[in-house]
């Protein structure tokens, strides 16, 4: 039997096994080669060499300007890790990196990178728990050494760590290019991703996280992929991971099996929002700066559904329309800005600026004057005050 077929059969077994009364009754049987606690590879092995390379990348994480060092956010994410794998709480080291794409990845030495683009796109601690559980499962199942041995004799190995450390070595453009180089290992990797899905869900369920939250990650991600007409199919995450639709369906079936077996499933949406709220405006700014407006709109519309009272989300919807500046965008931007303003509390000051700009460009001078005046009053020390005053003078001159 081919390796891929073996892995697929294993995956099927994992998804249907049900002999253990605790976690395994839901999803999986622990595989025989889990990484032992406190494991260090013997010095004369290829695995030791791999760990050495991972140590070098981890050192880059520690000194990277992209590293998010906020103690509270790091403590929160680390806390979720410790809920998932209490016995490996110290072994798994988290590095949150300010990169606006959806990704997290685990290294064989226990280091894990979590990109802020992932935290922007999920909405509960249960979802975070599933993603982290998935990545930890790559570590505990020693997937990386398996992959390394498969690809080390091919050109793919050149991209192996390059991709992992991409935010520090290549920037986002290089990341996509490297992703293409990784295409050669996608078949094998996808099987391991399926296995990590199953094992990650098991960890999340053991921690009491709502299993239904897992599938919704992939539904949202699938929607975003479909909305983006340009590049995401070239991006490493989607070339090396199973299709979102497939994952969503698989995880939905697994969640259905677990449904009702726990008296109260944990979602912890409030805790997740409290931990991430101080950073979300800058994360959304970074998302919009990618210029993938259709994907951004897909994300923001979902956030608007999940957070019907969020003025911030509506402001960013207005921003996407303003920046895209296509047919109908001016009207949609104004509508979104006005919805944000109508929420009354938590309205970003910049909403007035955005509204003024769109109104100025569409010739609605009265609205532009009112919006710019409001902005200058609300943000008297804004660093673009002189520019907005110039805009204001232009709309006043045009209609004295």
């Amino acid at each position, binding site marked *: 039997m081919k390796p891929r077929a073996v892995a697929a059969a294993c995956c099927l077994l994992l998804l249907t096994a049900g002999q253990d009364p605790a976690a395994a009754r839901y999803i999986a049987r622990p595989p025989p080669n889990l990484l032992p606690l406190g494991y260090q590879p013997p010095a004369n092995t290829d695995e030791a060499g791999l760990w050495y390379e991972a140590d070098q990348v981890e050192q880059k994480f520690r000194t990277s300007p992209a590293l998010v060092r906020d103690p509270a956010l790091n403590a929160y994410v680390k806390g979720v890790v410790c809920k998932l794998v209490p016995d490996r709480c110290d072994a798994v080291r988290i590095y949150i990196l300010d990169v606006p794409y959806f990704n997290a990845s685990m290294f064989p030495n226990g280091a894990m990178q979590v990109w802020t683009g992932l935290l922007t796109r999920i909405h509960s601690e249960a979802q975070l728990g599933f993603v982290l559980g998935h990545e930890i499962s790559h570590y505990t199942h020693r997937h990386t050494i398996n992959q390394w041995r498969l690809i080390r004799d091919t050109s793919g190995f050149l991209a192996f760590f390059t991709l992992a450390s991409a935010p*520090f070595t290549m920037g986002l453009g290089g990341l996509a290019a490297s992703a293409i180089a990784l295409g050669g290992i996608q078949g094998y990797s996808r099987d391991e991703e399926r296995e990590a899905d199953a094992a990650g869900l098991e960890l999340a369920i053991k921690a009491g996280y709502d299993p239904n939250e897992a599938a919704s990650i992939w539904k949202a991600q699938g929607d975003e992929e479909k909305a983006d007409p340009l590049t995401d199919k070239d991006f490493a995450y989607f070339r090396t991971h199973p299709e979102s639709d497939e994952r969503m369906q698989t995880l939905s079936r697994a969640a259905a099996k677990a449904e009702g077996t726990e008296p109260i499933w944990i979602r912890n949406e409030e805790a997740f929002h409290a931990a991430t709220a101080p950073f979300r405006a800058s994360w959304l700014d970074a998302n919009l700066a990618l210029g993938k407006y259709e994907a951004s709109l897909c994300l923001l519309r979902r956030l608007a559904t999940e957070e019907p009272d969020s003025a911030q989300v509506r402001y960013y919807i207005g921003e996407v329309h303003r*920046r895209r*500046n296509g047919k109908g965008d001016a009207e949609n931007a104004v509508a979104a800005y006005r919805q944000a303003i109508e929420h009354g509390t938590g309205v970003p000051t910049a909403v007035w600026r955005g509204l003024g700009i769109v109104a100025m460009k569409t010739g609605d001078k009265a609205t532009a004057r009112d919006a710019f005046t409001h902005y200058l009053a609300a943000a008297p020390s804004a660093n673009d005050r002189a520019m907005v005053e110039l805009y204001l003078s232009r709309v006043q001159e045009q209609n004295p």
Partner: protein
Amino acid sequence: MKILRSLVLGAVMAMLSGCATYSLVPANKAVDVGNGVKVTSEISWAKEESPSISGTVWTADGGELDALIFVTGVSEGKPLIKFDGARLKELRVYKADMIPDDVMELLTSNFGHIGYDQIKTANLKPAPFGATQGFRFDLDFLTKEGLAMKGEALAAQRGKTLDLILYMAPGEYYYDHYAPTVEKVFSSVDAK
């Protein structure tokens, strides 16, 4: 045989120099940087073509350490950076009806495609561009290698084209070292 040897030697020299060709920009002399824009600097610079941005680069200590970039005469439908034709559709391009905010976002967006990360802009304000009403803004970003850079842009929209002068250098030491000189270059703009 002598001609062949000279050609080979020339080719080798070009390879050794990275194929970049430099020319001297003299100090204290008005220099045409395109689209009818002239500037004067109190120091001399080395001039080269930018590998990634659609313009001419002046540098004092080397393009990686300080760069004064002139992107002039950008017309409707053109980006600010050089980019592969097949992927051009991914880029935001200049439109004549853009306002200063749009131009600032255009630069940010285009820089993201070069591979620069965490690009942040601030202090957008009106500024003279010669006799024309222009604008300027600051930016910070990380290079592909993770080096923290600072920059300052002076721009103007004249007719249907955009002229932009961008100074960027590593935030530590180099930016501040040439910033006063660049400020005088900005003040020297003569745009016809």
